[in-house]
């Protein structure tokens, strides 16, 4: 399931809803991304997440479908927020549920790694020196490249 929204989400309630009634699930892994107060040596007062409505949902849907194809998953959840967020606020939740833990762990890492390099979101940080667009990290590309099949 994919959601792109301005509002916050309740991690416990989301995971509960994801696995509710699916008693074949043996484990669920999740990753929650938060706004940090320092990034790249800059103090961050807040950040604004911009996205490309339509393409965002399409890309997240494709990432979800790819995970379902690669691992025996019972459920996948991706929630990503947009708009202005302050340090400590939740940005993203990805979760994967499976009969066994290894598929759930691997799929969860795959989901966030691919999301970070493929989903059309951009972060604009507010720092004491002014506004600053976050630059893409080579380490994110390397993390995503681990999942490219030969």
């Amino acid at each position, binding site marked *: 399931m994919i959601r792109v929204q301005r509002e916050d989400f309740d991690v416990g309630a989301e995971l509960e809803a994801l696995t509710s009634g699916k008693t074949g699930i043996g484990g669920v892994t999740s990753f929650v991304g938060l706004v940090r107060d320092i990034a790249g040596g800059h103090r961050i007062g807040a950040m604004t*997440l911009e996205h490309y409505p339509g*393409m965002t949902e399409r890309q997240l849907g494709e990432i979800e479908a790819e995970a379902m194809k690669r691992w025996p998953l019972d459920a996948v959840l991706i929630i990503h927020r947009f708009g202005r967020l302050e340090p400590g606020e939740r*940005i993203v939740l990805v979760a994967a549920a499976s009969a066994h833990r290894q598929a759930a762990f691997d799929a969860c890492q795959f989901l966030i790694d691919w999301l970070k390099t*493929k989903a*059309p979101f951009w972060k604009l940080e507010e720092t004491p020196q002014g506004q600053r667009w976050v630059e893409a990290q080579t380490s*994110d590309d390397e993390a995503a490249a681990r999942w490219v099949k030969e």
Partner: protein
Amino acid sequence: MKLLYFAWLRAKIGISEERVEPPAGVTNVAALLDWLKTRGPGFAEALKDTRVVRVAVNQRYVGWDHALAPGDEVALFPPVTGG
């Protein structure tokens, strides 16, 4: 053709979307970027280093040689930084 600009490309160009009719020779993405660069200082500045420009046509990533059609939705944006 509908053009969309995001993040610092939008900020430098000064608008988030527009409708354009490129000249007849503009048949692919590379030619579109070359033409856009000539449309003013904001475009020239935003597109001066195309290594940091990503292009999506009809909401899918494409390469520089992708052929364009008149009804396409073409989005230009920097490498993504979500998550």
